[in-house]
């Protein structure tokens, strides 16, 4: 369902070339609950942007549901994001001037769904996160946990094939974080594919399996198990670049600094 075939993403910072993602290969199946774990500056955000079709790869190929993403225009990417991907962000990313209800409804408007259908889906999604009673509230009238639940409802409403969560508990206290993770688990039990990006081991542990990312290099163990017998080379390139690691790290941290 998500297949990365040696995907690279290169940033040019002046004269320097920063490889935010270096020949990353990933394979995530339908219905899996996968966490992607790595320290800050490891290329997590870049990975998430590419998986979420917010950005495209410079090299390599990315297949989502068997479709190669590289070829698509901005317009088609928007459509894919709209229909296939439900985003959950660390800072919730709700539109502050809109009520919970309107926020959840927004992706459905962009899908061109009829008013009645929208109302039904909004109700369903908000009830799922137990916030239907607060549908008329704007984000700043709600706690962080509630805002994140609205964001999850927004992702659910468009019935995506993939939930993509970027540090969803990062801005929340532990109790609320746990609440959010429970929602993810129940979403998973309903058969949804969930990709959770985090730097927190404890959060990552709750997923079925973890993919580690470090300095733009991805270690997808399931892929190794599958492909190791066939391609013995797969292990070699992943070892070689480790010699360069210190240099890469300084570049990465510089890049992170620039972004912040």
């Amino acid at each position: 369902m998500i297949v990365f075939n040696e995907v690279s993403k290169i940033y040019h910072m002046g004269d320097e070339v920063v490889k935010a993602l270096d020949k990353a290969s990933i394979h995530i199946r339908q219905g899996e609950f996968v966490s992607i774990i790595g320290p800050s500056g490891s290329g997590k955000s870049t990975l998430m942007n590419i998986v979420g079709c917010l950005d495209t790869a410079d090299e390599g190929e990315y297949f989502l549901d068997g479709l190669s993403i590289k070829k698509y225009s901005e317009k088609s990417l928007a459509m894919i994001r709209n229909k296939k991907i439900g985003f959950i962000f660390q800072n919730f990313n709700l539109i502050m001037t809109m009520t919970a209800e309107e926020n959840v409804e927004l992706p459905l408007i962009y899908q061109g769904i009829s008013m009645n259908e929208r109302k039904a889906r909004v109700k369903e999604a908000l009830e799922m996160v137990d916030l239907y009673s607060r549908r008329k509230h704007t984000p700043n009238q709600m706690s962080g946990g509630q805002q994140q639940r609205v964001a999850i409802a927004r992702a659910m409403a468009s019935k995506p094939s993939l939930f993509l969560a970027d540090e969803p508990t990062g801005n929340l206290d532990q109790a609320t974080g746990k609440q959010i993770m429970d929602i993810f688990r129940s979403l998973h039990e309903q058969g949804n594919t969930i990709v959770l990006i985090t730097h927190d081991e404890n959060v990552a542990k709750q997923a079925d399996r973890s993919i580690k990312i470090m300095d733009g290099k991805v270690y997808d163990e399931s892929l190794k198990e599958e492909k190791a017998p066939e391609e013995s080379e797969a292990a070699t390139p992943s070892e070689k670049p480790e010699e360069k690691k210190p240099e890469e790290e300084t570049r990465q941290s510089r890049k992170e600094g620039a972004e912040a």
Partner: protein
Amino acid sequence: MILQSIKMALKSIKTNKLRSFLTMLGIIIGVFALVVLVSLVSGATSSITDSISGIGNDLISVNLFDWGEGTYRMSLKEVSALPEELEHVALVAPAAQGTVEAKTRMKGAGIQIYGTTAAYAEIQGYKMKYGRFLMNPDCENHTNVVVLNHETAIQFFGRDNCVGEYLKLDGRDYKVIGVIDSGKEQQSMMSMLLGGGMYTVYVPYTSLIRLVSNVKLSVDQFYASAVDGDTKAAQSELNDYLTEIYGDEDMFYIFSQSEISDAMDKVTSTLSLLLGGIAGISLLVGGIGIMNIMLVSVTERTKEIGIRKAIGAQPSAIRLQFLIEAMTLSIVGCIIGIIFSWIVIEIINIIGNVSFGLSIPVIIVSVLFSSGVGVLFGLYPAHKASKMKPIDALRFS
């Protein structure tokens, strides 16, 4: 989708009430200036052209000058024969005027007197209230008959039905044969233009020769009307004919009412255009204000744009949203401007005791123009918003 965008636009205008109002102010003032100025000008124009056309648009007036000894003078007969010679000239009525002392038992006063022929009433479009106008036998026999205008009848006889009575003109008795209906303003307007007074009477041209010393058989002035209202053709025909007779264009002067109204139309349409242009410039300035605010708004809402794009808004949807927002600002401003100008025109009407109406074409023009301004100046900010990259926009805080 469009409905949703309009809703969103109204919402974002509502959340920034003061700013939106200040932005709209440019458009409000522009539309207000446009509608009020053009309505006033066209209101004034139509009242002026109404009174001009009331005189009769197809009336041609010809003056023949007397440059002293040796100049050729057209006689009454020659003038009267003009319609037979010129195919575009329908009727001709020579006219001479003077002032005489009129007297009845009730009143005596100086009055304006015209000596003319039967065709005069038809050329001027006079309707008779009582009796008849002058007829050809009256002129041929220089009978002492007189036609009064309404005001004269009332003042000299105390009633308008005074046919058969006698009016003394410089001591001689003239029989009243008709009274002109002055229900219309035309006579007073005409006599005002010709410098006449309120009391006007008409006698046969030939009779006037006997009454007033400087009126002779040679004609100084005559009126003509054109066949089928084709004033221009008749005018040029007369011009050619008279040039041939006199050999000099300075010997006569031809002039028609349509010339005044044409000139008037030109003046007022230029005036409307000028004022409209100035108002249009202020609308344009208002549009720039909208563009400025839209650009600020796009920057301010970068994050919102990023979120919208992340959850699947197409670039075209974002563009539409901002475009509609700009258009809503300008159209709402336009509507407020129209309402405001309507109120002001009503106030002018009450205070000035006039009746200016809102000019509908101007309202249509201003609605079209300001939505055009909205589109024109919303296009760039909307385009800018739609071209934002979702990741860059999301990172913005």
